[in-house]
């Protein structure tokens, strides 16, 4: 790719983003929390390592992961993360969804890789946690 076509720092806006915008950018399927599309996140964090997620101090964080099991939802619950994007076409089980609904979470499924998911959201202006 021509380096000149990469967005420079000035072209990248940073800030909060609503879930409906995130779902649109990622062409994601909303599996639960359809009534919370106006909820906004301040930043995003991508990890398949839940131990790393549990070290986050920030609130209103979007979690992007390729790890699809009940402990992903539990980790989000403990970390006060209200929205999780399951990337690289990972399938969310009914058990995971039930737990997510109990905790008023928004769960999205997207077919893009974690790298592409992060790239699209970062370019669109969503901030990293750090």
């Amino acid at each position, binding site marked *: 790719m021509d380096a000149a076509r990469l967005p420079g720092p000035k072209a990248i806006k940073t800030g909060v983003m609503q879930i409906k915008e995130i779902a649109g950018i990622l062409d994601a399927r909303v599996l639960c929390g359809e009534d919370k599309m106006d909820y906004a996140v301040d930043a995003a964090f991508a990890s*398949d*390592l*839940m*131990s*790393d*997620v*549990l*070290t986050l101090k920030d609130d209103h964080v979007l979690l992007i992961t390729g*790890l699809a*099991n*009940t*402990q*992903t939802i*539990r*980790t989000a*619950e*403990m*970390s*006060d993360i209200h929205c999780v994007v399951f990337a690289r076409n990972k399938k969310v089980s009914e*058990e995971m969804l039930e737990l997510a609904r109990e905790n008023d979470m928004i769960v999205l499924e997207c077919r893009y890789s974690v790298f592409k998911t992060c790239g699209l959201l970062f370019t669109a202006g969503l901030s990293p946690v750090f």
Partner: protein
Amino acid sequence: MAEVERILLEYNIEGGNFTRAGYASSQIKKVLKQMQVDLGVIKRTVVASYEAEVNVVAHAYSGTMYVAIDPEAVCIELVDEGPGIPDIEQAMQEGFSTASVSVREMGFGAGMGLPNIKKNTDHLEIDSQVEKGTRVAMTIFLDPARRNKEQQQ
């Protein structure tokens, strides 16, 4: 925060059963929210209890979580039957882990659990006997100002 008397809770934790891991911490979170405890304190408490709960599921055969909440603090004690920790100082180092492949596949076992428990609690005690089990006792003050004050001293 709502005034509370002493609340005692007890949960059994099954070693190796990841589908139930986090249930006890989830219940603690619900109780603390009902008590209108500071949200930052709730997060630190449940992150620490969840890390400890996952440790029992990942490493021990069985365990019990005892929770006591009074107007001052939440005290959580996990007692397990399991292989124990031969070198607690080494286990407290970030990155040290003896977790199995299956535990790592669940997103844990990176050697960050015990250090993260320490970071999130106001007091932490760990006692262990090899081939018998481990006791982890933690205290988190409900008043966030008390934590900041004690950290400055």
